[in-house]
């Protein structure tokens, strides 16, 4: 298991967003986290990336407990993510957004930076080349030098994925990558996720688009009211009466 979280709990005031949730994500697979609105999917992603501190539980990533660590340590350990509500750096170009993603891999000491050491100039060229390749891969090469705030919505979604990939994470958390996209853009995301997984990156996908979930994922976790309702193979989960009830109500189930 690449990541194993045990007994995760998170409260906001009196509301319990997540309670006693166990999840385990095997290396190299595509995992989906699904559930009705308010089930705690984004809360789970925020816990797994350190944006929230859990009230209880442990998060073992490659054997190390990261629970309670600040977000930058989750990233340093190799967990990357995108955001449901875009968190693009709108004060940069598309290319610079992706170059910023290389932070974990290419950086220099303060003295070398201020004096612009030759080693830094070399690593900057490597960083730029890597970022250009990633923009190519997500189909944004022609936007490379455009200001990020001039990109259309669908492109921004892919820019966030490229930026997260730039850090070469071993675990990539995607928070609703297809939300707001049209069917052809969704197909592009589908293919992109498959390519990412094929390179050996483990993917955790929070998504409402069931077709995308069923198409790309190897393993599905279902959350409902902050608890884990079911998990398993996509086909089996989609036939699980408890899951159908959570999504459609009990009447649909008894019919």
């Amino acid at each position, binding site marked *: 298991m690449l990541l194993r979280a045990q007994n995760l709990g998170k409260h906001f005031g009196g509301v319990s967003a997540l309670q006693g949730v166990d999840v385990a994500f095997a290396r190299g697979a595509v995992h989906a986290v699904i559930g009705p609105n308010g089930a705690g999917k984004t809360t789970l992603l925020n816990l797994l990336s350190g944006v929230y501190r859990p009230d209880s539980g442990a998060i073992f990533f490659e054997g190390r407990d990261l629970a309670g660590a600040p977000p930058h340590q989750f990233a340093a350990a190799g967990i990357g993510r995108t955001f449901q509500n875009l968190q693009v750096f*709108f004060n*940069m170009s598309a290319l610079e957004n992706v170059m910023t993603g290389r932070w974990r891999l290419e*950086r220099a000491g303060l003295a070398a930076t201020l004096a612009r050491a030759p080693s*830094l100039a070399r690593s900057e060229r490597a960083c730029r080349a890597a970022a250009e390749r990633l923009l190519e891969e997500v189909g944004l090469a022609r936007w490379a030098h455009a200001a990020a705030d001039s990109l259309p919505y669908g492109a921004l979604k892919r820019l966030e994925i490229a930026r997260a990939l730039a850090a070469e994470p071993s675990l990539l958390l995607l928070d609703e990558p297809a939300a707001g996209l049209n069917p052809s853009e969704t197909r592009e995301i589908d293919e992109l996720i498959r390519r990412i997984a094929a390179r050996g990156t483990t993917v955790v996908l929070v998504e409402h688009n069931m077709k995308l979930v069923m198409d790309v994922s190897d393993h599905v976790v279902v959350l409902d009211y902050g608890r884990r309702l079911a998990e398993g193979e996509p086909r089996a989960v989609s036939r699980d009466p408890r899951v159908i009830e959570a999504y459609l109500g009990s009447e649909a189930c008894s019919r």
Partner: protein
Amino acid sequence: MDCSAAARPNGSRKALLLLAAIVAALPLALPNNYAYEVAILVALNALACVGLNLLVGYAGQISLGHAGFFGLGAYGSAILAARYGWPAWGSIPVTLAGVALLAWAIGWPILRLKGHALAMATLGFGIIVAIVLATEDRLTGGPDGMAVPPLPGIQGEKTWYWVVGAALLAGVWLAQNLIDSPRGRALRALHGSEVAAGALGIDAARHKVAAFVISALFAAAAGALSAHYAGFITPGKASFLHSVELVTMVVFGGMASTFGAVAGAAVLTTLPHLLTVFKDYEMVLLGAVMMLTMIFMPRGLVPTLESVLAAARAKPR
């Protein structure tokens, strides 16, 4: 938002050469010592603004107390030189080290604050410095100010012009190197989205404090040079008014543009000297400039000019 100048290291190198050419050629156009004096004041304010812009324009953190660091740089070096007989070339580095330490110590608690709260905290810091400088009269001479020994071997407006010009070019070079680097992108990332920066492994608190310390050092260096140049200082240099002047120069010249900070300092330092009839209304003028900038060119002078030029160049095709 502007991304053109900072995006291409070549562009910023050209701009640095242009600035060096301006510094080198300007004496040809300076008719007398008074003009030299204005040019020196421009360069000193520009140095402080280039540093402040790293914090305000790039990292997106406000400071309304940077004149406090300017004042500490000025008084620190002045007191070591005048009261303890330190050689001036020793008093400046030691003062800068002290200011860096202080900025680091107060940066950790206050840079957790955001927006208005950070503005109030830095404002408070600036006011405390101004009050201490005005009341510790045994060391500082109080509100009447104190005489500052000159730097050995540097005399006259013309020599000072080259010293201050070189300091400005060095400051701009350092700032541009920082901006065109992973660390510079980390600072801009904090401005763009702190949560996304964290998700990429950027330690927000550390980089905000680093930007705060570096910008404080620029202000303190400008302050120390200005004290030794003028030969006399008063607590006014650390006042809230001076803090606001520095922020206005950065905003007017263009946030997240190093050359904008220089241009802002040049225009707003020169203006009151050209329009001496407005001397009593300097504060009013500053307020008006701030309001008009926000309304008509919210990105500031240099970024606005850059996009106008880029549009003009693109047209013929």
